[in-house]
């Protein structure tokens, strides 16, 4: 288990509060359509959100999102609800990865518009596809899985060291 970062009370920034608020909203949103046991999962997700926001617990955001996806998978939520949830997840993950010590938060927020718009477009495209054909084909899910694995591998070149190198001059 990852160690919690040591942070003082004064180090809580507005970005931390924004991240916590978005995380709690993300966790709470699908509960209206979710079964009863999902509340326990959501509570664990909320704890992960708070730990990530105020104690710099690095796995927190991903665990919170996992809890949200678990709750959504067994919920009766419609496509529009899930689309909104997907956008909330994106906003939360962007806020959770905000750098510490930001002095110009407005500029940082303006930089997050581009990934948010990209997410909106992707979400719209999927919504359109789902509106055209209500699919439940195993072939499609297998293709989706392969695409996900491919995207994951492309996005995460783990263990591939860069050819770049730097030197350290001790003066």
């Amino acid at each position, binding site marked *: 288990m990852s160690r919690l970062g040591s942070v003082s009370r004064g180090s809580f920034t507005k970005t931390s509060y924004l991240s916590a608020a978005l995380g709690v909203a993300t966790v709470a949103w699908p509960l209206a359509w979710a079964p009863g046991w999902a509340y326990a999962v959501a509570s664990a997700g909320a704890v992960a959100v708070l730990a990530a926001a105020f104690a710099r617990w690095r796995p927190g955001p991903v665990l919170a999102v996992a809890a949200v996806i678990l709750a959504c998978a067994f919920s009766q939520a419609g496509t529009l609800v899930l689309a909104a949830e*997907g*956008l909330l997840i994106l906003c939360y993950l962007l806020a959770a990865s905000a*750098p510490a*010590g930001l002095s110009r938060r407005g500029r940082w927020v303006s930089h997050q518009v581009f990934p948010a718009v990209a997410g909106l477009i992707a979400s719209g495209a999927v919504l359109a596809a789902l509106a055209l054909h209500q699919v439940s084909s195993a072939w499609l899910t297998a293709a989706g*899985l392969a695409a996900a694995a491919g995207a*994951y591998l492309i996005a995460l070149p783990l263990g591939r060291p860069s050819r770049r190198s*730097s*030197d350290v001059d001790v003066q």
Partner: protein
Amino acid sequence: MRFGRTERGSSPGPPPAPPGTQRQPARWLPSARSRSLASAALLALVAAVLTGHAALVLLAAPALGALALMARRRPPELGIDVALSGSRCFEGEDVTITTTVRAAEPLDEVILELQLAPQAVLAGASPSAQAFLRTGQASARWVVRCDRWGRYSPGTVQVTSRAGALQASRQAELDPLEVFPRPARMRPRLVPAELLRRIGEHTGRALGEGVEFAGIRPYLPGDQLRDVNRAVSIRRGQLHVNQRAAARAADLVVMIDAFGPVDDRAGPVTERTLDLAVHGAATLVTAYLRVSDRAGLVVLGGQLRWLGPAAGDRQFYRIAEMMLAARYDSFVIPDVGRIPRTALPPGTLVVVFSPLLDPRGFGAIADLRQRGFPLIAVDTLRDEPPPGSRADARLALRLWRLDRTATRTALRALGVPVLQWSEGAELDSVLAPLRQPPPGLRRLAGSRS
């Protein structure tokens, strides 16, 4: 002048590395943001496949869209320059740390975070972490206050830079700082009976050209007219002149008993006694050097080290540097007879700061006293073993107290006054009883109250 460490990125034709250059490859890895987005998308897609609920793809779509927008281009070169405003300071003084990161192309994010050592605190208004967005050059400045003497690095600077979906993180440890103990103010009023022939500020027993009144005698040809004491001359009907005491310099050697465990094995009590000894030594040395006396240092810490008495500000820094490395682990019994005569001149006033716990320290003090040096021992131990609840623990504590009393009595029997430096007391007040010796006792030093 630039101190510290400079880290620079490699260039297509890097010049040959000078001696002392270390080459470390920069590792660009997926950033935390891209990892979390990719993980969330993957989880949602897996859930969609496992449940057969195609609408769950909607949870993954925004994250995948944001991931697709992230550039995965070749990261630019990085040059990291970390500099300290100085390499020496006193306790409580501020030191400025400046870190500059340069890149050939603008980076999405550059985060400079200072991780301080336990002995240092952030003094300025700058936060420990500072983030810069879309910039090719970022510079952060921190003001750090070192609260503990010693030779240590004030911390490390963590540089995290993100370019698209990749990020690189580097740590640059700051060069060690020499933090000298801050001496307290005191007046050098303890002097040995035998003063030097050099002119100084202490009142000697011999007559001379000082400022202190020493007596009256009849006028002799050659006497200065300004020395004539008019009142006595009128009363006696004969010219009388005032005599003045000679102003001489003194030699002082401070001895630090640094026996004990070192590094991780040193407990808080050991650290406190050494801390007290070093501060006391710094206070004494500063006070005597300020009035043109000569001061030296002997460190009893397994390996015997000494610095002969000398005058001037430079001597203080030499002594302070030796004190920074006072702790030295060894089982050697120091032989003070090895100290050369120039380092411990006869008649020098020796002040020993010791917790009186190690028999080797006691042996060295006794040896010096038997060689005729005027000695003063300052007990730096302020703690006692925990009393415990068991009867045998209380008995052990009583025995320990008796043993310490016996040690002090043995030192006093040798003619070495032992002064307890209690909590909250200044060194000047600790040494005050020796300036006014009780009647009937032999004067240890030639000080005049």
